[in-house]
């Protein structure tokens, strides 16, 4: 199990190699990517920031929970911080397991928990020049530029 916050582009191939074992019959790779529209507004990119020490700690807690719950230590999670352009990978979760169901369930568990608990924030940059912090609890909060 390994988790990390990174600035550089995520190397998905390296993550897949890291979870690959002879006993793995299934590998799941989840990627979160920057898309070009949100709430019907054209998006140019997203700026990610974090309370880094706590974000690492929470990511590690979540990965350990997944490890215990789904029975595999072969879990790698990387979340990228900084400005990301369209199609860039913001989060990658790689899990391998002897069986496909727990491999898929573990990746699903990790991304859902990340969205609930890890102190990471994103500010969307829109094509019209505006920028807003994304608040999943109540849509978008308008913030001065």
């Amino acid at each position, binding site marked *: 199990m390994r988790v990390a916050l990174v600035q550089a582009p995520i190397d998905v191939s390296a993550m897949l190699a890291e979870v690959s074992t002879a006993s793995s019959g299934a590998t799941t790779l989840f990627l*979160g990517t920057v898309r070009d529209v949100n709430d019907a507004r054209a998006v140019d990119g997203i700026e*990610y*920031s*974090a*309370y880094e*020490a*706590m*974000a690492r*700690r929470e990511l590690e807690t979540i990965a350990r929970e997944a490890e215990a719950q789904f029975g595999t230590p072969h879990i790698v999670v990387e*979340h990228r911080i900084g400005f990301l352009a369209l199609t860039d990978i*913001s*989060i990658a979760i790689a899990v391998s397991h002897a069986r496909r169901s727990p491999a898929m369930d573990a990746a699903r568990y990790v*991304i859902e928990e*990340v*969205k*609930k*608990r*890890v*102190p*990471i*924030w*994103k*500010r969307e940059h829109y094509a019209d020049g505006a920028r807003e*912090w*994304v*608040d*999943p*609890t*109540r849509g978008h*909060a308008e*913030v*001065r530029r």
Partner: protein
Amino acid sequence: MLFRAQLRPGDRPVEFFHMATVRVLLFASYAEALGTSSLEIEVGAEPRVRDVLASVRARAGATQLPPSPLVAINERYARLDDPVGERDEVAIIPPVAGG
């Protein structure tokens, strides 16, 4: 914290309250609202998370904080009634949006 000091033998003890200084971290929209990413705030005796929040609310720009924001003490989520020590790092956490 209440301290009791006796300066010389025979003197009446003097009692005083110690004001604690707590470091508060702010992030993302909250940091923008208050114009800073960290604050040093003075709180009274045996402060709880809710006391720290009350002090932060007195600052300019704090009207944007919701009634009960998420708070962490030393990188772990905390409750409003949790005690805050002088060396603790308190973080007020905006709604998270990772992934």
